[in-house]
């Protein structure tokens, strides 16, 4: 018994260690529930692949709709996993523990957003250029699409987390998240798809990508804080 009572903790671990423990735990949980992760990944692949089949093999039409199709599919796929982002933690009491952590809750929320992006965003970025080939997109446009997704998908995860936090404890939360979050996704959609369209037409993509980068920085500052505020209200 004495050994238990005398266990001495090492509390020198800093902010970064706590942050990475939040990320690691969510990644491990995602690994344990691989079906959930694969669902949004295959949803993205299937939705994007349905369009060439439905629209027909006219290269010019395909090239024209490709940016919008890929980006809309990315928005929807990233939203599929959102209701799980915080709801399970809310139900089992983990969220209370995060709120009570002496470390800033906004930083812990950023960790959860990062984990969500690593699990849902990265696979989309990797597979999107391959799917773009179905639409006869030229090489430079494929590169711009991947770059745009790299800048845009973290924004989706961050804004989505706000929606997930606001709908905690609400019945029918997953439907409500879509209504809350999709309008917020519009700027990312416009500039993400716009960048690919510009690349297809041979125009400069710098403006579009700069806007996406600006959205990324803006949400990195605002979203963790907003999600933390919503979570505090939800656990009360």
């Amino acid at each position: 018994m004495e050994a238990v009572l005398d266990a001495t903790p090492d509390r020198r671990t800093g902010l970064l260690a706590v942050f990475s423990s939040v990320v690691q735990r969510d990644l491990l949980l995602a690994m344990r529930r691989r079906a959930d992760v694969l669902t949004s990944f295959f949803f993205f692949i299937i939705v994007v692949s349905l369009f060439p089949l439905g629209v027909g093999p006219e290269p010019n039409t395909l090239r024209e709709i490709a940016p919008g199709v890929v980006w809309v599919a990315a928005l929807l796929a990233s939203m599929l996993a959102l209701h799980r982002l915080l709801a399970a933690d809310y139900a089992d009491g983990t969220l209370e523990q995060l709120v009570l952590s002496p470390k800033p809750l906004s930083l812990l929320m950023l960790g959860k957003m990062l984990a969500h992006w690593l699990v849902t965003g990265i696979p989309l970025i990797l597979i999107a250029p391959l799917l773009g080939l179905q639409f006869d997109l030229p090489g430079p446009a494929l590169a711009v699409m991947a770059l745009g997704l790299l800048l845009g998908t973290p924004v989706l995860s961050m804004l989505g987390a706000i929606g997930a936090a606001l709908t905690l404890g609400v019945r029918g939360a997953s439907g409500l998240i879509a209504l809350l979050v999709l309008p917020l996704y519009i700027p990312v959609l416009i500039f993400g798809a716009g960048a690919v369209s510009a690349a297809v037409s041979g125009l400069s993509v710098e403006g579009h990508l700069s806007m996406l980068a600006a959205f990324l920085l803006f949400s990195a500052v605002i979203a963790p804080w907003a999600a933390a505020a919503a979570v505090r209200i939800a656990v009360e």
Partner: protein
Amino acid sequence: MGVPWGLGVLQGVDLECIRGQRRLFSKLSFTVQAGEALWVSGPNGSGKTSLLRILCTLLAPESGEVRWRGRPVRELGEAYRAGLTYIGHAVAVKDDLSSLENLRFALAQDGCRVAEAALIDTLARFGLAGREELPARVLSQGQRRRVSLARLPFCADRALWILDEPLTALDVQAVELMHALITAHLVRGGVVVLTSHQPIDLKDVSVQHLRMVD
């Protein structure tokens, strides 16, 4: 308020709590000294959990305030939470993680890194020997609670423990272990606030009994 620094450690002052349309309690005041336990009992729905959530700042009281070492906890913020361990009714144990992983992440989130051997040793003392690697999904209710309580030995440096129904679903042996842990914490000058329907059997330490009425 006339309470010397560090003596009236935890104070509730005229606390009032309203949930939904119901006033659970009002004008609730108490003072807990260092090395003293506050045992909150009462019928279901009398506001025990709400009181504990107010004490750990998860819930804001309708009126009144909680003071830690004479200062309102709302003001203390992070400094108060850094000295607090709360184990709620929801055990914060993930079904898909093993007992060992659950304990490790719970401690890591607390900013506390512990050697693997110490974790396994502690789980064994909580009666989970040989079950460290099992997913929490297959554990019983009492075992899941033990996983969440296994944090406590590593929280010796946190002055205030707030435990919501820590003895629920525990067998006699585990209840004894909990009593020993709580007693040791009180002896070293900590404060423990807990709810329980079963009588608290703590020897040689002072226990204040707060009976909530419906």
